[in-house]
């Protein structure tokens, strides 16, 4: 596969960290969807999505963030996004994601946001 994608999961205290690597498009979005669904099913709704290794995202990938955020917030959790490269961040900004999601530079900053505001209104 010329444009691979992977989701790596780790745990930092009560926070789940999903690290995205490679190319997130309509072909790979279901993989990311399953990863988030797995966290919700396990009752883990405080999610940090670390996009430092994400090289590419299309609206299919952004759609995954959108389709889960309400359910996660209703359960008292949130998705906080960190580490996006400027090229990737630009796409989030075009669609106005900064109004809906906390987007910060580092994983530590994302963890800090959870300490300050575990959930947030959309």
């Amino acid at each position, binding site marked *: *596969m*010329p*444009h691979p994608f992977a989701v790596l999961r780790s745990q930092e205290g009560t926070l789940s960290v999903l690290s995205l690597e490679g*190319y997130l*498009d*309509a*072909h790979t979005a279901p993989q990311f969807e399953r990863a988030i669904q797995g966290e919700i099913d396990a009752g883990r709704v405080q999610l940090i999505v670390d996009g430092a290794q994400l090289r*590419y995202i*299309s*609206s*299919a990938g*952004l*759609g*995954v963030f*959108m*389709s889960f*955020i*309400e*359910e996660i917030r209703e359960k008292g959790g949130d998705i906080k996004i960190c580490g996006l490269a400027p*090229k990737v961040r630009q*796409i989030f900004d*075009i*669609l*106005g*994601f900064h*109004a*809906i999601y906390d987007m910060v530079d580092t994983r530590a900053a994302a963890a800090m946001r959870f300490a300050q505001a575990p959930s947030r209104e*959309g």
Partner: protein
Amino acid sequence: MASIEQKFTLHVPSSTQNLAIIREFVTNVGVQAGLGEDDVAKLELAVDEACTNVIEHAHGGDITKDVVVRATFDEKMLRIEVVDSGAGFDPARIPEEDVERLVAQRRSGGLGLRVMRSLMDEVSYEIVPGNTNRLRMTKRLRKD
């Protein structure tokens, strides 16, 4: 030499698996047309969005159909045509809603067109019932 129009065409089976091939094709065309790194990335994403719409909506996941991407450029303009043989899926007919509203309704549709319009200079769609449909996008080329 600079005024000669150059044409490139890619045919691939209609599957999201081929989005990577489509992106590499259009990236190479963008570089050859003289676009900067930033504009090549925009072109790559806009064409991905157009082809994803064709694969998932116009062709409804039917891998026996082909997605055709035609790229043409001269010294002034890069034109992309994405051709499908589906029922005619005009992305412009999808209402452009606020992202907040889509989130509230747990929907994620209609983002692709917004991305295409943001990244390209012009986006238009031509439906030819029973035949082929064409989404056209243009990007003006800056020459230093």
